[in-house]
């Protein structure tokens, strides 16, 4: 029993060291290209303006949209932006690079990653960060603050924690979505569309759960809970959804994680490296 605990601790400690070194290296790598970072940092938040325009347009035509007032919608959208940006910061770089790794046009090839004693999914899909999206994170936080200040709500500690927990679940869910999309390229020779698909799918997460009814509702609210990005956390925050629902969503995401991981490992097995 004690042996198992020690082994677990050793594994975690090793992972921590790996991620620490990997992060430092990635940071150093990025510092070598300040203009890229600057460009990304300044242009990415501009997309936020578009969504603000959308909200203003919607509320120019109606005073309440699916049970949300304008300021509540700002919180909704700010949360969406925050979740999207966090997912981009932590998971965008390696997953976006995966097709190039497979084709051998990136700096490491997937082949080399496979023979290292590190879990292939961990190695190939995490470890590099998209610092440019940090400004987007700030925009998201700003919008949430704007919305909350415009229309203050009574928020208890439990709701706040539930809000944060669901958001993090949403970030992880986005990772699984991107992973699933990119894993398909092991089966199709030519799939450049992964990134666009990922961002497109996220669009469904901008709206309250109520928008989707019937089978669409089951799809987006339960099976593939894209509404975890915004609607679920915000409704927990405003007390419109019970806090224990987090457990349900955590379970769903766990199942999805298990499925995507199986798909990844199965695809790697069938992998025929193109760099031959």
């Amino acid at each position, binding site marked *: 029993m004690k042996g198992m605990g020690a082994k677990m601790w050793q594994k975690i400690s*090793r992972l921590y*060291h*790996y991620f620490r*070194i*990997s992060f430092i*290296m990635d940071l*150093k*790598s990025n510092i*070598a*290209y300040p203009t890229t970072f600057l460009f990304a940092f300044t242009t990415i938040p501009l997309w936020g303006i578009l969504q603000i325009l959308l909200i203003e347009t919607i509320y120019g035509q109606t005073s309440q949209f699916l049970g949300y007032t304008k300021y509540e919608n700002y919180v909704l959208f700010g949360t969406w932006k925050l979740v999207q940006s966090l997912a981009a910061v932590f998971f965008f770089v390696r997953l976006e690079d995966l097709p190039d790794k497979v084709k*051998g046009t*990136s*700096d*490491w*090839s997937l*082949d*080399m990653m*496979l*023979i*290292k*004693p*590190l879990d*292939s999914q961990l190695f190939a899909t995490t470890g590099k960060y998209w610092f440019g999206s940090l400004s987007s994170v700030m925009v998201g936080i700003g919008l949430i603050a704007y919305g909350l200040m415009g229309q203050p709500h009574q928020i208890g500690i439990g709701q706040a924690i539930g809000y944060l927990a669901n958001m993090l679940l949403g970030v992880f869910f986005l990772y699984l979505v991107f992973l699933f999309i990119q894993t398909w390229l092991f089966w199709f*020779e030519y799939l450049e569309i992964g990134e666009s698909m990922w961002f497109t799918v996220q669009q469904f997460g901008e709206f309250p759960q109520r928008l989707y009814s019937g089978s669409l509702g089951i799809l987006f609210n339960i099976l593939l809970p894209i509404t975890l990005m915004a609607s679920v956390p915000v409704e927990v925050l405003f007390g419109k959804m019970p806090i224990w629902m987090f457990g349900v969503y955590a379970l769903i995401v766990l199942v999805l994680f298990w499925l995507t991981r199986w798909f990844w490992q199965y695809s790697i*097995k*069938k*992998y*025929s*490296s193109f*760099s*031959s």
Partner: protein
Amino acid sequence: MSEKVAIEVKGLSKHFSVPVKAEGFGASVKSLFYREYKSVKAVEKISFRIEEGEMVGFLGPNGAGKTTTMKMLSGILYPSNGVVKVLGYNPTDRKPAFQKQISMVMGQKNQLWWDLPATDAYILNKEIFNIPTHEYKQTLDELVALLGVEEILSTPVRKLSLGQRMKCELIAALLHRPKVLFLDEPTIGLDVVTQKKVREFLKKINREMKTTILLTSHYMEDVQAVCPRVIMINRGAKLYDGTIDNLIKTYATEKYLQVDFDNEIPREKLEAIGRVVEYEGTRVVIAVPRVAHAKKAAELLTTYTVDNLDIQEIKLEDIIVKHFSK
């Protein structure tokens, strides 16, 4: 050399399913709805054994199946058929215990980070392979001294020359003191001096670290300088397995003389000296028996006015064509 078997391969095969490319516009439209596939036999029933501490060269023309075989030995590719055992493990299981004992260098982009100095990649490898610090330092110092790269370790990799990069890659590959090292075309694109250095280095680490080394190349000189044993592969099949001396003695019985004459010499006259392989006006390539090549060269030089004479090794493809084609 110990008696322990490092690599054992029996009846190894790898088939790829490749879509048939459509020719012409009409066929392209058809391919939208229906795709034909054909089976490509990259590796077909190869068997061999390699013992610990051996240095073996895989020789063969491009596309022969050498890289594919190596990828199956390292666990990157899944064999279609046959048995592979490396250090007692099944490579495709990719057990960490197995992965910690092997290493691979394939082409140029392997484990270094483009924008950072090589030392950063080494530290990362240290973490990945869980190398204890004192052992890491010792091995690193040893390898750096052997290759003489102290000064370039803190330069970003993208600023290094190809030769320097290759040396840094080799160090990265050996930090965890693997028992087996796979090298795919390690000297391709390198200048002559670096090629020599790399070959010397490989021989040294084989001697001192007892590393089993497998290297593929389509240059015979590569293998000749480094490996006592060579396995020749063509079109996925094993054609020869033995010492390189024997290979040369048995099959490379000729050498090529590439001559640039001052004026055109009639072909029949040259046929008296040797077998004319190429004839293009003033440039001629003549094949002469290996043992007599110096004499034949001298004969050419004294009989005719020669602008330039090059003595070349018979090409590998020619050995294959001459002795192994069906």
